């Protein structure tokens, strides 16, 4: 069973808040970005490597590859899984990746989305994905940075 300490939805993936705050608070030694576009983009990977803390390694896998090899993770790999969207997290969960808790960090404003929290904007497709995740027994939390209190998760469903 892979040691997935936390999964975060953050459209900026590995950036300041993730690299300097969450990685440390979670106690991860492996930051796994599961994202189809980034898995194929060495430039974005190199920028994220620069942001990542020195105590953690980084991996950039497609969703499919993550599903395929997550169970080969070693005992000593303490994984912080980072995704861009709830849809990607749902694909991972449905593909058998043992995700227990999802922290929702940054989901930026876009056409058709409405703001439900300081840093979280969602549309109908997101609501649907969050509902499915909840039904699959995944714990959801809206929290931008570790030192701030969590926001009401019921906002995710309406």
């Amino acid at each position: 069973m892979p040691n997935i300490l936390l999964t975060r939805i953050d459209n900026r993936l590995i950036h300041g808040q993730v690299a300097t705050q969450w990685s440390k608070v979670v106690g991860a030694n492996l930051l796994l970005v599961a994202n189809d576009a980034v898995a194929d983009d060495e430039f974005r990977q190199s920028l994220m490597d620069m942001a990542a803390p020195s105590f953690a390694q980084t991996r950039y896998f497609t969703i499919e590859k993550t599903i395929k090899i997550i169970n080969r993770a070693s005992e000593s790999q303490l994984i912080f899984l980072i995704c861009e969207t709830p849809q990607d997290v749902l694909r991972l969960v449905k593909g058998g990746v043992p995700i227990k808790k999802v922290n929702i960090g940054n989901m930026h404003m876009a056409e058709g989305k409405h703001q439900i929290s300081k840093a979280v904007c969602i549309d109908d497709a997101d609501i649907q994905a969050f509902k499915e995740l909840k039904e699959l027994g995944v714990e959801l939390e809206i929290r931008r940075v570790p030192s701030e209190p969590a926001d009401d998760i019921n906002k995710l469903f309406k």
Partner: protein
Amino acid sequence: MKNLLVLSGHGQYATGLASNVAFIAGEHEDLMVVDFQLEDTEDTLKQKYESIIEAHPESSVVFVCDLVGGTPFRCATGISRTNPNIEVVCGVNTAAIMESLFMKDTFSAPELAQFLIEKTHESCVHVRLPQKSRTMLEVDGI
């Protein structure tokens, strides 16, 4: 002993830096700001520093000033001459301040001052692309 960080500099350096740190690390009550404004004098600035120190008799204070030789630096250093619980550093950056928030109370004030300087040096970089990607250290695992 608890350590307070007091950010202080010319103009809105302190409030700007505090807002910058809070964006990434959230709000921290042990991080305080004193702006040196146009209407301030050396005396009013010193009074602001002293009122923070007096309000926290149980704490050591590390002043993070913008510029060696500037008035905030001079006022803070002046106070530190007669108060052993005060340290002064200059030119410290965001990365160092954020990192120090995790562990500042495990240090004495002089150790915290040294930590801030070291972390600033480490995180001050000239970015050159392309970066070599990180070596894979694990043999087993993913």
